[in-house]
């Protein structure tokens, strides 16, 4: 294994292009694009200020660099180095900037979520979308890039607008039966939109593309509700992680719960294998769980530490929620399906896991912790059982 020299970067801005050929890193106000195979600098762009956000376009041709402080967005072309584009949001401010799926439009969210400005790089046209809702996940593009769902708040009521990304035509606009909409997510086939309420109420609503309410799911009342929602890649299952430390999985036909996984403090399932980091601070291993009750063993990759198989039952350190503080660190906060929809990785409680990602082969998980990265391989022979 070879290691390259260390490249400088700032604000954790270091991204590989979607086609996997280039690597873009930001160093203060400079944007450096390298060829991944040779690691040689292809382009060097200079932005107007320190870059706070950087994003590749879907076709890997353009790079967006947002400077939130200045309310500026600069776009660079990889093919035409002298092409440049600068979008100034002006005094209205900027809190978020992102590409549209086609890579020709930029969506800027202004301060106070006053509006979303859609800038077209093709026509230089600008369009505004009013009343966007400031919430956990208020905007979501469908997987094929055709439609965009946007949560809106008007007159103290939640609405969802569905736009056609092609020309930002408003396709549907409907009110949702939520108290305080917290997020929405398209199913991978782009036909069902899952909408969930804020944590004060356990409520998951499912809308079809044309705005019909397909189903409503409510597991319990009164206590804190949904924390995370994730679709399986096959669109057949919807996993809902909640504050009661359980994952419920709905099917796509009747939208009823088919199974419920708990996160017990002691793992005594005989099928489970638990690996524990020994040398360093323990308790990095995230929860084990799978759709088919096959527990994945986590092998953590680190140079200094080793991992041992713990004899069952294993006691997982549990954080008691503090009642006087908001947003308790309990509940299932991260859900990740493997690409073949066979496994589900979850993160429960206050583990130092930033993100969970499955490898496309579906037999290994990347765990990004606060100060380390873990690769969890699953023995493929094991799953044959």
């Amino acid at each position, binding site marked *: 294994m070879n290691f390259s020299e260390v490249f400088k970067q700032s604000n954790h801005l270091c991204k590989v292009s979607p086609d996997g050929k280039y690597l873009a890193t930001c160093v203060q106000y400079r944007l450096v694009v390298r060829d991944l195979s040779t690691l040689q600098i292809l382009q060097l762009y200079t932005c107007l200020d320190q870059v706070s956000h950087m994003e590749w376009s*879907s*076709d890997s041709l353009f790079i967006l660099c947002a400077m939130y402080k200045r309310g500026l967005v600069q776009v660079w072309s990889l093919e035409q180095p*002298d*092409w*440049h*584009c*600068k*979008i*100034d*949001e*002006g*005094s*209205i401010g900027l809190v978020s900037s992102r590409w549209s799926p*086609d*890579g*020709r439009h930029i969506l800027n969210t202004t301060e*106070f979520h*006053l*509006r979303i400005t859609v*800038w*077209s*790089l*093709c*026509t*230089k046209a*600008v369009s505004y979308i*009013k*009343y966007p809702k400031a919430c956990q996940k208020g905007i979501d593009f469908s997987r094929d890039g*055709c*439609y965009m769902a946007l949560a809106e*708040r*008007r*007159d*103290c009521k939640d609405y969802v607008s569905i736009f*056609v990304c*092609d*020309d930002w*035509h408003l*396709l549907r606009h409907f009110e949702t039966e939520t108290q305080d909409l917290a997020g929405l997510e398209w199913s991978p*086939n*782009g*036909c069902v939109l899952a909408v969930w309420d804020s944590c004060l109420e356990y409520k998951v609503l499912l809308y*079809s*593309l*044309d705005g019909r309410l397909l189903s409503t799911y409510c597991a319990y009342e009164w206590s804190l509700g949904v924390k995370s929602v994730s679709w399986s890649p096959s669109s057949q299952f919807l996993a809902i992680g909640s504050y009661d430390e359980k994952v419920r999985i709905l099917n*796509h*036909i009747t939208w009823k719960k088919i199974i419920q996984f708990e996160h017990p403090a002691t793992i005594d399932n005989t099928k489970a294998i638990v690996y524990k980091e020994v040398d360093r601070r323990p308790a990095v291993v995230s929860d084990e769980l799978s759709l088919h009750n096959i527990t994945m063993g986590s092998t953590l990759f680190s140079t200094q530490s080793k991992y041992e198989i713990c004899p069952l039952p294993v006691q997982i350190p549990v954080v008691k929620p503090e009642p006087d503080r908001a947003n308790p660190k309990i509940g299932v906060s991260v859900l990740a399906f493997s690409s073949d929809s066979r496994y589900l990785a979850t993160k429960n409680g206050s583990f130092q896991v930033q993100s969970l990602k499955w490898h496309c082969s579906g037999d290994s998980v990347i765990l990004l912790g606060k100060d380390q990265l873990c690769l969890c391989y699953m023995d493929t022979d094991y799953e044959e059982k």
Partner: protein
Amino acid sequence: MGEWRATNAYMEGPEISSISHVTISPSRHNHVPGYSFPLSRSSYSVISAFCTEDNVPQSISYLNQELAVLGLSMCIEASSAEGASLKAVPVLNTMYELLQINKRNMCALEEMEKEQLKKLSTLEHIQISNSRLKDQLELSMREKSGLHETERQLQLKIKTLQSCLKTEKEEVQKLQSIIASRASQYSHDAKRKEREAAKLKERLSQLLVDRKERKLAIDVLNSLGRSDGKRSMWKTAKLSASHESEMYKTLLGDYETSRKALILENAELKKVLQQMKKEMMHILAPRQQSTSGATAADDSQEQVESDEEKAGNTSREAFDHSCELAREQLLNSIRQQWRKLRNHVEKLDQVSQVHNQMESNKETIPLETHEDEMERMRQEVQQCREFIHAQQQLLQQQLNTSFDDETAALLNDCYTLEEKERLKEEWKLFEEQKKNFEKERKNFTEAAIRLGREKMSFEEDRAAWLKNHFLNATPFANRRRYSSSDGQSALSVRSEPEVRMSSAKAKRSKSPTYTTFSTPKPSRSSPVPSTTELYRTLRLLPDGSCSKHSNRGRWLETSTVEEGHPQIKSNLQARAEHRRRKNRYYRSALGKRKRTNTQRMSSSSNLTTMKKAVQQLRFEASINRVKVSQAAVDLQQFCLQNALQDPLLTGVSSSTNPFRPQKVCSFL
């Protein structure tokens, strides 16, 4: 008796004082009368004032009155008018009566005193227990009061708690209402705030738009082409319509895919259903035959219907999967089938329950027998196992010693091992017997040979003698003699051919004895053997032939016996002895004949020969002879004696029979 008299004497004194005295110390009086006697004596002297010589009649009358009062009919009478002396008999009687009364009273008194003592003790006991109970009562009263107190306190507590609860409930209600009001207030405020924020946002955006800031612009070098290469279109109704249609297309596509998946699933489920139906029908079919006629008819009808439905279903399936009619019919048929199955199962349950009840009533005794049977079977199995084990062990042994042929052969038929050994012993015995017989025969033959030789020598002697006689005789005088001798010689000649004939006969029979005998050598002049020898040999000669005969017979016998039992052996030996004795008898008879013959032959034999003959006769006379009849009787007796042990007559018992049929071992 002395005491009694003493008391009597004392009793003659005044009774009242004594009674009074007695009441004072009854025990003393009872136990130490000797002691009280002098005391009463002294008292007598003191209270002698009662009766003096002057007032005897008065005192008598007084005493009579007193006695009447006491209920005694007797009265003391003065013997004389003056009353100086009393009539002894009534006085004594009254005295006796009084004594009796006194005694009785004393006894009663004693008993009563005892009673009193007892009662006193019981009283004491009762008093003690009473006091104890009083204490207990007091204690319990105190406890009771304490409990009352605690109960009161608890009730108070309950009351306070209830009031607390009430207040708490009220509090809760209040709080709930407060929360509700607060929540509503909060939501209201939130809405207000949100509205305000919205207004502010509106205002801000308006302001921002109104200002038309220079900065709020896009600065692009040159506009890019669309990623799909198409040109952007104007926003028209057509476009929106196309969007709509596209959306519906995607939706439709999604529904189509889901429908397809569902159809596939449906088809599979249908397949499963059909299979289930088939199996159900298969299960239900035999039941219909067994059940009673009415239900069977019903079922068969249903069966036919369901069959029709099934056919319809399958035919429809081919045309249209989602035909509702087909689905309904399918559902109906399934329901019917299901109902039937359920009924069937219920029926079966009932039947089984009834059956169980019946069985539980019935099967109590059979179960025991069954267990017994089982136990027996187990035992049998155990036995069989042991048997097999033994067999295996034997086999193992055989395998181990298979190199030894003889033992292997023995082990091959381990059942007949014993018998074989026994037979072997028998065989040995027979062999020995055979040897003995051989020996005897040899002896006989040797004797015969000797006899032949002796005979030959005798012939030679005779020839020599004849020659001498012929030569010694005068031609004339000797002629007559000669003639006579000739006659004799003729006789002898006549006898010679006899001998020769016999020899020829012997030759023909090829007996070794006769061959030796038929080759006389007249040239050899051997000394004449002693007559005793001769006779012995002569006696032996027929014995030889006879022995041969008997031998043969014996052989026959042995051959027959050989297969028989060893018990025969002694029998046989005895018989052989008998035969020998008989032979001896025959021999002697034969010897006599020969002797006469020889006597005739040597009519004028010399003295020595005569002497020898005498010797021989003496010898023979000394021999103990047995008559044939006696021998026969002996023989018969022996036979009868041993008849019981003769297996040929009585048969062999199965326990000792070595050739009994083998037991057949068979597994059950």
